């Protein structure tokens, strides 16, 4: 309903207030008069009318608004009149490139996720007033700069959809490293997107990827310490989630999806198997590297190659990469050197990785590895 109101009114705050007023009126009237046949439509109409009243009271002669051209609907008259679900328009508006990425994430969580400002603030370890201001500024920018409320036209859609998926995945990743709540939120958003855009393979690809990652969550840590993929207790994997993730992946592949999220989901699916098909994983990373031209993907491919052809081969690939500020490069190098028993070089690489890693389970893991290298 909120999405519909925002679309109708072109103003986030006005829509929120109107919605609240409508709920208040319903709480008062429905116990007395009985539930209307179509409560959703009743609420939406009531909210619209309240908003129109307010605008009329507040407008000046110079202010033009298209709302005045729209006839005021009668509340009780509304039966089956369908109100369009404008959540898709809302997602694309929240993720418009004219907004800073932080603002896109916050706005998406607030308006689509329905999270309260203080919840979002806590999730990103920021004070509430800071998050509140971020939201206020974003909404102001949408209005002042004339960001359109619509699903982008075909020639803009591919890039804009990529941006939306990136925001959802960002939200998922913020939750994945520990604060579980946000990853659930991202999965919910992904499902809504899949409902709204069922023919987009990358949407299903992202859903598959997130759910397959989530399926292994319980096995990733033990007593707060990191457990490597190879050592994970597979009985802790969520079979329902894996099944759902694979179904989404199949759907994406059936739609001829071969984009970055689909490929990553395919890799994630293979990781859930026992034994792991490293050849297929390496091939998929190769395809992903061609699609994204990303050295990080190349790094992942090198790790897969290590399982197939040994650490020496992989080290050649890793040393060719320009990723000096990336902690996983050094962690991967360190591991390869460790396996090759080049202890001094491994220690140096672990030290560098530790420098780049903030406190937490990952850092503790690297420190343990470094200690293990010390001569007894």
């Amino acid at each position, binding site marked *: 309903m909120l999405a519909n109101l925002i679309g109708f009114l072109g103003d986030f705050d006005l829509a929120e207030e109107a919605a609240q007023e409508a709920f208040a009126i319903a709480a008062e009237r429905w116990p007395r008069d009985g539930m209307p046949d179509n409560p959703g439509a009743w609420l939406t109409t009531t909210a619209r009318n309240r908003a129109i009243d307010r605008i009329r009271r507040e407008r000046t002669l*110079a202010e033009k608004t298209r709302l005045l051209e729209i006839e005021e609907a009668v509340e009780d008259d509304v039966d089956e009149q369908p109100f369009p679900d404008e959540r898709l328009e809302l997602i694309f508006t929240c993720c*418009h490139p*004219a907004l800073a990425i932080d603002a896109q994430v916050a706005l998406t969580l607030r308006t689509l996720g329905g999270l309260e400002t203080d919840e979002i603030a806590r999730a990103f370890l920021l004070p509430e007033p800071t998050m509140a201001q971020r939201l206020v500024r974003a909404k102001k920018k949408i209005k*002042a*700069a*004339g*960001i*359109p409320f619509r699903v*982008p036209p075909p020639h*803009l859609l591919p890039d804009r959809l990529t941006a939306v998926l990136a925001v959802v995945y960002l939200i998922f990743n913020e939750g994945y490293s520990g604060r579980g709540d946000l990853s659930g939120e991202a999965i919910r958003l992904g499902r809504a997107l899949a409902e709204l855009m069922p023919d987009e393979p990358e949407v299903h690809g992202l859903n598959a990827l997130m759910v397959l990652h989530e399926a292994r969550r319980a096995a990733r840590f033990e007593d707060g310490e990191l457990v490597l993929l190879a050592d994970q207790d597979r009985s802790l994997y969520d079979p329902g989630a894996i099944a759902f993730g694979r179904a989404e992946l199949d759907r994406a592949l059936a739609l001829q999806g071969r984009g970055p999220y689909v490929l990553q989901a395919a890799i994630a699916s293979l990781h859930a198997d026992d034994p792991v098909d490293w050849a297929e994983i390496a091939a998929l990373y190769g395809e992903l590297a061609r699609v994204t031209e990303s050295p990080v993907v190349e790094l992942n491919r090198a790790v897969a190659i290590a399982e197939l052809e040994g650490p020496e081969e992989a080290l050649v690939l890793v040393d060719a990469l320009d990723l000096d500020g990336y902690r996983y490069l050094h962690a991967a190098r360190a591991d390869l050197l460790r396996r090759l028993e080049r202890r001094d070089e491994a220690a140096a690489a672990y030290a560098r990785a530790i420098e780049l890693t903030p406190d937490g389970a990952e850092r503790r893991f690297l420190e343990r590895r470094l200690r293990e290298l010390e001569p007894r």
Partner: protein
Amino acid sequence: MKYALLIYSDEGFGTWDTLSEAEQNALRGEYMAISALPETVGAQQLQPGTTATTVRVANGGALTTDGPFAETKEVLGGFYLVDVPDLDAALEIAARIPAARMGGSVEVRPVVER
């Protein structure tokens, strides 16, 4: 909605001079085509930053200095004023401005409308 499209580019090495006459004419044509759009309600090319003079008033007196207001690498070189339905439309026009793909930037800012 009206938007100002402010064109910033590096005047330093004069990439312009390295272009052939044919290439220069082609670019001029592109700028003129944007000026000729029905959405374009204003357009001016500015003379180089070296021709600028900056005025500030303080303590009741005007302080006049040689040059643009900020000594930056990128200088305002011109602008378009466009009247379009929304930001996306303004961004599309901005993306067509040659300076944007030749190392410069175009700032798109809505105009205050009364």
